[in-house]
Structure formats: structure tokens, C-alpha cells
């Protein structure tokens, strides 16, 4: 295989990796940042993807927008805002209540969304939404990934970022310091959902297609696995987790039985991580790194 062939083969897996990494970064804020369990992260990703696609396919021509860069930027905004709004609608009633209703509600939302999308003809129904203009590409995905990563790393130091982490660690103490734990959790959830929506917008304009399967529970599980395997409390861990979850199936591409059993291997990796490195693979790597590098990297 020549270098050129290799590059050609790897473009799609690299795009998938970048998309999964962005999704995982969004979920990391929800799961590791706020300590909330979302089992429907892929559904917010699908909301973003479908909305962004509907925008470029239907709304943009009507508005007379043609510039591809502008269109892609606008579709990112549409993807983010639609997923944010969906996240808001799902989270508000759950967070108002005491107890862990969020996991159930997100699961339910994913089911409802999947069924709804299958029945909307304008976005292709069960066949999926095709003929989406090719606006994004590998560089778009990686630049966005880098920006999201950078922004989330800085976000931790902001007032809201600190409030979210304090709420995760101890709600009673957080409230005793003037933090509205309700707003902190809601903010983490909607921002994480919006990031999933951004991933959706990038995805649909890179592969020019999206189907209701993207909202499926199994997709959400993959993202949860990426965050847990990589290390819930670290951003680099989530990217690492995404890399593992995309590379492993790709490496098994020519072996059908192994490929079909891939969830078993993921489950084994999760058990391994839980047993030997509860803070995720990222922290396992940190242990073997020189002290100086650890200081810079930080595990939080």
C-alpha cells in the first residue's frame, strides 16, 4: 500500500475519530465535569446533525446563501443551538426534581427522537437524510476539535466552570457558598449537548448523509465508553478514549467475527480500566511519564 493509498483509506476513519472525540469532550463536561449521566448524548448529536442539514438543504437556498465557508459556519451555529435547546427541554424538568431522572429521560428522549425522525419524510424518514452539500472536511473537523478542546480547558477556570466542579464534588457545600447547583448542572448539560450538536453539523456535511440510527442508544454507549475508558475527569482522556473506540473497530475491519464481538472487547477494556486505573487510561499513562510532564498535563 502506498502512502497515498493509506492516506485515502484513513481520511474517513480520521473524520470519525475527530467527530467521536468532539462528542466525547461534550459528554466529558456532563459526566466528568458535572457528574450527570446522559445516556442519550448521541440523540443531541443527531438533533444538531439533522437541524444543520435541514438548514443547508432547505433554509440556505431560500435565504440565497451560497458561500460554502459561511454556510458551514452558520450550520455549526444551527447545530449547536438546536442541540442546546433540546438539551434544555430534556434537562429542565429532570433537574428540578430530586433524584437521578436524567439518565432515564435522556434514554427516553433518544428513543422518541429516533422514532420521530423515521417518520419525517422531509428529512428522509427511515432511508435517512441524503444529498447534503459537502461543506466540511478533515481540516474542519480537526480545527473544530482543537477549538472545542481549548475552550473546554479554559472553561474550567471560569466562574461557571468552577461552580460546575464544586457542584459535582459536594452539592451542599457548593450551595453554602452561594452556588446555584441547579444552574450549574443545567449549564453543564446544555453546553455539553451543544458540543454534541456541533459534532453533528460537522458529520453531516462531511459524509453528506445522516440516518435515524445516529440517535441510537448504542451510539450513546460508545461515547460514554470513550469518556469512561479515557478517564472521566480529563479532556485528553476523552480524546484518547475516542481514538481507542474508533481505531479498534477499524483495525478489526477485515475480521468479521472479531468486529462483531467488538462490544465484548470494549466491555473487557472497561472492566480492566475500572480495576487497574479507575481514573481512566489517561492517568495510567501519566504514571509512566516523567514528573515534569505530569505537572504540565495535569489530570484534572
Amino acid at each position: 500500500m502506498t502512502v497515498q493509498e493509506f492516506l485515502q483509506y484513513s481520511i474517513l476513519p480520521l473524520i470519525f475519530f475527530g467527530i467521536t472525540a468532539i462528542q466525547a469532550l461534550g459528554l466529558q463536561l456532563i459526566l466528568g465535569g458535572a457528574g450527570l449521566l446522559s445516556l442519550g448524548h448521541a440523540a443531541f448529536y443527531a438533533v444538531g446533525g439533522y437541524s444543520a442539514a435541514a438548514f443547508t438543504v432547505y433554509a440556505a437556498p431560500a435565504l440565497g446563501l451560497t458561500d460554502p465557508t459561511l454556510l458551514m459556519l452558520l450550520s455549526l451555529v444551527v447545530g449547536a443551538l438546536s442541540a442546546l435547546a433540546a438539551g434544555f427541554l430534556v434537562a429542565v424538568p429532570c433537574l428540578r426534581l430530586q433524584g437521578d431522572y436524567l439518565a432515564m429521560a435522556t434514554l427516553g428522549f433518544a428513543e422518541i427522537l429516533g422514532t420521530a425522525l423515521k417518520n419525517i419524510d422531509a428529512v428522509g424518514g427511515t432511508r435517512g437524510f441524503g444529498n447534503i452539500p459537502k461543506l466540511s472536511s478533515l481540516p474542519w473537523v480537526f480545527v473544530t476539535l482543537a477549538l472545542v478542546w481549548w475552550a473546554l480547558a479554559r472553561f474550567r477556570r471560569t466562574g461557571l466552570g468552577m461552580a460546575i466542579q464544586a457542584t459535582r464534588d459536594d452539592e451542599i457545600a457548593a450551595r453554602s457558598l452561594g452556588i446555584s447547583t441547579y444552574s450549574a448542572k443545567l449549564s453543564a448539560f446544555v453546553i455539553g449537548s451543544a458540543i454534541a450538536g456541533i459534532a453533528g453539523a460537522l458529520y453531516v456535511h462531511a459524509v453528506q448523509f445522516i440516518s435515524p440510527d445516529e440517535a441510537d442508544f448504542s451510539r450513546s454507549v460508545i461515547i460514554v465508553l470513550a469518556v469512561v475508558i479515557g478517564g472521566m475527569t480529563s479532556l485528553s482522556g476523552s480524546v484518547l478514549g475516542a481514538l481507542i473506540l474508533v481505531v479498534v473497530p477499524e483495525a478489526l475491519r477485515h475480521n468479521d467475527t472479531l468486529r462483531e464481538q467488538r462490544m465484548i472487547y470494549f466491555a473487557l477494556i472497561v472492566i480492566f480500566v475500572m480495576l487497574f486505573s479507575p481514573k481512566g487510561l489517561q492517568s495510567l499513562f501519566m504514571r509512566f511519564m516523567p514528573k515534569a510532564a505530569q505537572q504540565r498535563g495535569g489530570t484534572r
Partner: protein
Amino acid sequence: MNSTSNHGSSEFLLKVENLTIRFGGLVAVQNFSLRVPARQIVGLIGPNGAGKTTVFNLMTGVYKPNQGTVYLQETELTGRGAHVIARSGVARTFQNIRLFAGLTVLENVIAAASWQRRGQSVASLFALPAVALKEKKLLESARKLLEFVGLSSYENWEATSLPYGLQRKLEIARAMMTNPKVLLLDEPAAGMNPTEKDELAKLVRSICDVHGLGVLLIEHDMKFVMNLCANITVLDHGEVIAVGSPLEIQKNPKVIEAYLGAEETTGEGTAAASGQGSHS
């Protein structure tokens, strides 16, 4: 105490009247009243399970009282959300230390300024000059508070890896970062050795004298309480059995009986209760 004065008398920072709360059949606190003036340390003592921590929880909005009122100067706080009460100027520490385990020592203090930074997250994300000065000041005051409690050299430690006594001091620094008018301390000397207790006493003194706060102090160490407090309220089975100066309290037969009674009848029981209650 004269009960005829209106709410909002500025003599007292914190004014609590007739607080009552029931948990199912148990009346945990009944008709509890107390006042905390500025620049004074008020003591709240009583045997295990008397209801002291519950009083703190009622004043800080963790529990809503069945009856009674809580005022901070002119502002009524009764039944309001815990974060609203904190923002109005009532800060506290916890008997079973509640630090943020995922954050460093410095971050624990900075986290207490979160609400003061609200609405600025986008600006601080991009390090805009508009907020740079304010953030620098917050960092400075966080460091000053760490210095004040003697934790400067532990800035980057994981908060929960500190020794017990230092964790209690960190909780004090964190509470003070909210710029409170009144500070409620729930057994701050628990688990400290005599030298640490002396240092802590000095610290609490200067919170009062230098920072001008009113302090309400729950403490089992009688020497500690008697030395620091101008005024002491004694609680037993949820009810106030005595109010007065340290000398008056020490001589009060009801108080002596409550403490002796607790020792005689529940010599084992008391130890067990404090074992489950306080050391988590």
C-alpha cells in the same frame, strides 16, 4: 434579652426567633432563638444530638423550619434557598468536613467566588481585559485568605489530602471567600491537638476583630468555648436550657445536669452517637 425590639435592629447581625423543626415524630429543634452581634463570638453548646448542627442547617437553608424566622440585619432569610442565604452574607463550615475533593486547595477557595463571577464566563474564557482585573483581585484575595489561615504553602495540594486540622482551616478560608457578615463554625477544633487549637482560637479571634464578622461557634471543647465566647447558648434535646456568659453557664445547674446526665446514662451511647455523626 429584650424581645420587643423590631426585626432589623442593626445591633444584631443575625437574629433567629422561635425556630422549630420536626423530623417525623422527632422534634429536633424547638423554639430556638439566638442573636449574633457584629464583632462577637457567640457559642452554641450542648450534648451530642442536642440539635446544634440542625440549627445551623435551619439558618443556612439546608432545612426549612416548620416555624420561626431568621433575619440577617434587615433581610428575612427564613425558608430561602441555601445559595441565596449564602449570597446575603451567611457562611459556614461543616462538622463532617465537606471540601471539594476534585479541586486543589487554592481552587477550593476560588470556587467560593463563583457566584461573584457570574455573567463573566465568556469574557474570562477569552481572557478579555474587561474581567482580567477583577479575576486578578479574586486570586489575590484567595491567596490572602490562605495566608490568613496558614495554608499558603499548600496551594496546589489536593484539598482532601491535607491533614485533618488543615482541612478545617481550609473550610474557614473557603467560607470567608464569600465575603460573609456572619460565619457559622461547626466544631472547628474537632480532631485538633492543643497547639492547633490555640492557633485556631487566635484565628477565630481575628476573624471577629480584624475582619469584623459575627461568629457563631459550635464546639465540644469547653475550654475553647469558654475562652472565646462572650455569650453562650446551651441546647439540650432541641430546647434552649440556658443563655449567658461563660461564668453563668458553668454555674448553671441545668447545664451541669444536662452534661452529667448525658455522661451517666449514655456513657456508651454518646460515644457511639458522636462516632457515627461526626467522623465520616
